[in-house]
């Protein structure tokens, strides 16, 4: 297992040498969405608190670092942590309200969606951060400003983000903290009866998750060079974030990565093929169908399924 992962990482490190620029773009998206999915995984997967508003954290992280860079000249390498911290504050607020008031299932989903939508509408109506037009970042190609002329630099940054988050997930999984989160997901009442401070651990998971997602926002801003409230805070992005861990296997360290390797190329292909015919919503239809199929036939996700099918030893199918 360890060797398979190390081998996979080595392959990914070497790949840019042979890939064309379109393939590199696809891989960047794979890594980035895997990273966001992994960040979501802490609260949505391990702790089982289904947040459908994670785009709010991406948006806050993205706008924060972009505004700091544009207005105060602060390098995004620092701004990304400021953005992460602000996202974590919002995460703490949502978590506090949701968990303190005991909102579960559908109610928690609605709460997170409502918060994300409030953020979107506020961003849409605040002229100081661009309003409906959004923010545009002038490309300078200066690495100190998180801007690279070479696509491969983004490749390695995104790969680094994904590996760091996945490593963190693997670490948490083995720690008491991770065990608590899984236990909370499986049976919260029993946890409380055993004296686990479920509120505290859910809060920790939420803060960690929103911080990581907010850090990802900086990559989003400085990879796309433009930010619009509808795309950075919108529900479609939240769904993109949830989908990969769900398909790959929520609550497993490799699930979001596997999910992203399955879904992102699929999305890119359908987008490239179908958008040409003017079918702009088609890839989202495909997402919906896939979500339904996964829930009905593979509720644990693809990774646990592969794990069972192939046994613990031979798990070297598919890239990771």
């Amino acid at each position, binding site marked *: 297992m360890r060797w398979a992962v190390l081998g996979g990482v080595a392959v990914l490190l070497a790949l840019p040498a042979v890939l064309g620029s379109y393939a590199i773009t696809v891989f960047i998206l794979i890594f980035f969405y895997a990273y966001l999915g992994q960040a979501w995984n802490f609260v949505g997967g391990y702790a089982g608190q289904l947040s459908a508003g994670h785009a709010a954290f991406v948006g806050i992280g993205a706008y924060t670092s972009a505004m700091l860079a544009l207005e105060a000249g602060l390098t995004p390498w620092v701004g990304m942590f400021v953005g992460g911290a602000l996202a974590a504050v919002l995460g703490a607020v949502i978590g506090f309200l949701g968990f303190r008031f005991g909102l579960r299932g559908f109610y928690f989903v609605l709460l997170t969606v409502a918060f994300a939508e409030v953020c979107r509408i506020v961003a849409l109506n605040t002229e100081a951060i661009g309003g409906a037009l959004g923010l545009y970042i002038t490309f300078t190609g200066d690495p100190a400003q998180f801007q690279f002329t070479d696509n491969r630099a983004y490749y390695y940054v995104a790969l680094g983000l994904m590996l760091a988050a996945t490593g963190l997930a693997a670490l948490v999984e083995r720690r008491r903290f991770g065990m608590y989160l899984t236990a909370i997901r499986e049976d919260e009442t029993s946890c409380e009866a055993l004296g686990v401070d479920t509120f505290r651990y859910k809060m920790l998971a939420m803060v960690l998750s929103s911080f990581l997602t907010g850090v990802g926002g900086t990559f989003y801003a400085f990879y796309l060079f433009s930010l619009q409230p509808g795309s950075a805070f919108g*529900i479609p992005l939240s769904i993109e974030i*949830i989908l990969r861990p769900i398909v790959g296997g929520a609550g497993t360290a490799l699930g979001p990565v596997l999910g992203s390797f399955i879904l992102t190329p699929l999305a890119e292909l359908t987008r490239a093929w179908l958008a040409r015919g003017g079918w702009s919503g088609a890839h989202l239809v495909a997402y919906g169908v896939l979500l339904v199929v996964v829930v009905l036939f593979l509720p644990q996700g693809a990774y646990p399924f592969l794990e069972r099918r192939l046994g613990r030893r031979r798990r070297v199918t598919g890239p990771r």
Partner: protein
Amino acid sequence: MGGVYSLMAIGLTLIFGVMRVVNFAHGDMMVWGMYLAWLLAGRAGIDPYLGFVLCAAALFVVGLVVQRGLVERILDAPHEMQILLMLGVALVLENGALVAFGPEPQRVRSPLTLATVWVGPLFVDVARLIAFLVAVALTLALYLFLARTDLGQTIRAAADNAYGALVIGADVRRIHMVAFGVGAACVGAAGALVSPFLPFQPSFGLSASVTSFNIVIIGGMGSLLGAFVGGLLVSLAESLGAVFLSPSLKELVSFSVLILILLFRPAGLFGARAA
């Protein structure tokens, strides 16, 4: 709008009350009702005030199929799975509409759109008046159906206790199909009824869903009376808000209200059970 809001919310609350499943695709089903009314008016020349019956029938079938093919399989699964399933259905419906009809806002033309009439001291749009009256009539009909007919009573029995209903020999699966179908038909009819005076596009589904959730949670999940009164309340609040607030702020208020209600009154005004 009040009556139409009530009708939307009653569809949602019926589905929740019987199956304990939250229909995340509710607003998108409404959008399909609107587009069907648009197709009927544009292609066959059927006025939406007659066509709503056909829209309701079509959505009834959609609800039936969704229940039979998808929801029934995971009634016992964790809530999270049900939510994800319905999110998937919502994605398919919304973007299916986007693929089929494009993103441009549409509006159904009806000869009644611009007509107005004096009702006592008030100057009222005929279109809105008809929509309101038909919606209230449908709500009453639904109430009578649930209260008086055998099938309606069995549906209520299954809502109270599915296992008990099974024990006394009710075909719970069929009841679930009918309940989901009727719920979808309600929102489909609501969509068709507002289509002449409310411009719509595929992305309208989400805000319609949120409005329905707002109403149903204010009224109490699963409570028909709550949904009816909640619909009137929310539409009143919205029209008052529209006078004082800009449209985007109005949306902000509706989400903020949702957050506050979730936190402080999750069981709603009329609901007895909190989930």
